[in-house]
């Protein structure tokens, strides 16, 4: 098996997968699925999708080694902190870098990429791969 992908997006925007994994590494990157939500809502939604996709790829957020956070407005950073601390294990946290970047649209407030280790044997069998 080569690269396993997860979280297919098909719509008016780019055709992409949000997650991909190879060997014992997995990575997920996305903006909020519901841009009607406020900053806290968008953050929670993104973290939930990361959890789901990591699980599909045989990983989990306890196995995250590095997170890159891009904020459309760095002024939102303080609001991110409590959500982050509740999501990670404060005793064994991943790496975190934050930087402000222009977003694709005004209602997209943040984007997160996470890198995690995984156990390929625990990855879900996706339909197209199960057929192989």
């Amino acid at each position, binding site marked *: 098996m080569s690269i396993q992908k997860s979280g297919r997006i098909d719509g008016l925007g780019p055709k992409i997968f949000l997650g991909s994994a190879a060997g014992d590494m997995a990575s997920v990157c996305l903006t909020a699925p519901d841009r009607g939500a406020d900053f806290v809502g968008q953050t929670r939604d993104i973290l939930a999708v990361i959890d789901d996709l990591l699980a599909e790829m045989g990983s989990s957020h306890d196995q995250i080694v590095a997170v890159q956070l*891009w904020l459309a407005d760095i002024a939102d950073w303080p609001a991110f902190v409590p959500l982050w601390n509740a999501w990670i294990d404060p005793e064994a946290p*991943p*790496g975190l*870098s934050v930087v*402000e*970047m222009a977003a694709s649209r005004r209602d997209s407030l943040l984007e997160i990429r996470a890198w995690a280790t995984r156990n390929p044997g625990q990855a879900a069998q996706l339909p197209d791969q199960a057929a192989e």
Partner: protein
Amino acid sequence: MITRSHTETMDGAHRALLCASGPWVHFTGVQPGNLDGDIKAQASDVLTRLEALMADAGVAQRDLFTVTIWLKDMRYFSGLNAVWNGWVDSADPPARTCVSGELYRPDLLLEIVAVAYRAEPAA
């Protein structure tokens, strides 16, 4: 097995500057210790800090797979490069990305995200 070290908080956010698993070593969000300095002072400071983390992880400059530098403003690009060029092995410099964006503190001029690959994981 993931090893996490050099944990600290950034405005209260818990994070580990060094996370390693197998051959891969992640140095994430490495910042200068002293923010009361110009770009050259902060660049030297953050590279010294990165080097100390690399030594702890048992990797050398030649083991760097990618280096990403987030720079507060591209006006600091030349100053950063002057310090960078003094730090790197000129015969074998690392692969580097440098993009500008505002950082979490107004007086922080740059931070580094680097990934290294070590052939023999340190015990």
